[in-house]
């Protein structure tokens, strides 16, 4: 069974680090989701929830669990992570109504549930249409009559310029060749679990750390996004607290007293 049966979820630090993504025993029954909307829709539909009304925060856990435990299309990992961040934000807003999260630096980045829902609905309509198209792919084609000499009445033939032959090959050469298909699954080197470990290690000296310090060490956008996600996850578990004096200012991550890392699990 896919991960959505595993609620309530927690992203386990150990998972992912040694996750055998290429192991056939692990991937056998799981669809590999190509995009985040596909995964989100799958989670909603497999629980028979109504896309129009379900609070999207309700599927946040299932989504993050899936991302942490199962292979997704590696090419689009940052898109998956971006939606994960939105969902976790929506969820934390529901959990902590009295304590609003600090505003996003850019208002346009503020996760908008209705906008996400609108995208889901649009995606679903076109995905359904694509399934319908697929069902009639080549099944009952409307066929053209290919030309044959007998059709054309006799006509005086004129000289043709040789340039048209060269032109035909040039035009053909200019059609973009599809590049080799990206591999479906590659090992993920950065996981939320790993980054949680990174954050904990950083906090182990003095119990607090500047998020910007950690982000500055990240090698890629994906790594930074996953680190941010790991931070949100720790906040969600109430294992850390985040403080930011002003917009764009440093974000201080501080361990919550009495909660030993990992003890909550």
């Amino acid at each position: 069974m896919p991960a959505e049966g595993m609620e309530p979820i927690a992203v386990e630090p150990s998972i992912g680090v040694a996750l055998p993504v290429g192991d056939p025993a692990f991937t056998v029954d799981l669809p590999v989701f190509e995009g985040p909307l596909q995964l989100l829709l799958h989670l909603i539909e497999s629980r028979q929830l109504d896309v129009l009304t379900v609070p999207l925060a309700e599927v946040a856990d299932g989504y993050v669990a899936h991302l942490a435990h199962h292979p997704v299309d590696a090419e689009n990992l940052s898109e998956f992570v971006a939606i994960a961040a939105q969902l976790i934000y929506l969820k934390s807003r529901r959990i902590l109504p009295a304590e609003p999260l600090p505003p996003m630096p850019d208002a346009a980045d503020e996760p908008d549930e209705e906008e996400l829902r609108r995208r889901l609905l649009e995606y679903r309509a076109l995905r359904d249409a694509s399934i319908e198209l697929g069902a009639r792919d080549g099944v009952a084609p409307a066929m053209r009559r290919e030309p044959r000499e007998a059709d054309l009445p006799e006509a005086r033939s004129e000289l043709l310029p040789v340039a048209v032959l060269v032109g035909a090959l040039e035009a053909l050469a200019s059609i973009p060749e599809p590049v080799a298909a990206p591999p479906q699954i590659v090992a993920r080197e950065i996981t939320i679990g790993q980054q949680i470990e990174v954050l904990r290690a950083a906090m182990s000296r003095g119990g607090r750390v500047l998020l910007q310090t950690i982000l500055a060490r990240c090698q890629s956008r994906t790594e930074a996004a996953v680190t941010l996600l790991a931070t949100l996850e720790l906040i969600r578990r109430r294992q850390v607290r985040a403080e930011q004096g002003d917009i764009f200012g440093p974000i201080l991550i501080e361990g919550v007293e009495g909660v030993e890392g990992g003890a909550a699990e």
Partner: protein
Amino acid sequence: MSDDLEVYFEALLFIAERPLSTAELATLADRPRPEAEAALASLAASLDGDERGLRVQRHDDAWQLVTAPEVGARLATYAAREEARLSPAALEALAVIAYRQPCTRGDVERVRGVDSDYVIRSLLHRRLIVETGRRDTPGRPVLFGTSFTFLERFGLTSIEDLPPLSTDAAQLAALADRADGD
């Protein structure tokens, strides 16, 4: 059918080895364009209404004669055509382009939520979509639309024949209205 022009156009589309535009057909018939267009529409309607084995296919102001979709399945057996099926990802991108044409790669990626460069190239390569121009926005991105090959493969006489999008379209509109009202 007794209209002279329809008779001529039916024969012309029969021997033509490519779709003919309304303008070309009007020139060949030496008639004004609106008259040619009316005759073509009437030919299309009469082939459809008489339940004949042939149909007029229209796309982007060009016309061609094809077999009727009702007999397509039996003909496909006869012609023993084998074409590689399209992947779900390619079908998704194709659906976005078919329903939203003309549209850009960015439009497709926005709807699908994923990079779609590869699938769009493969659709171009299969001639199922064609570049139709450029959008007049910064960067002037290329616009794509479906081709006659698309109509043939899916047994459609025109893109108006595409099944309507599920009720979600209406729901989307409702959502948009709600958002606008805010």
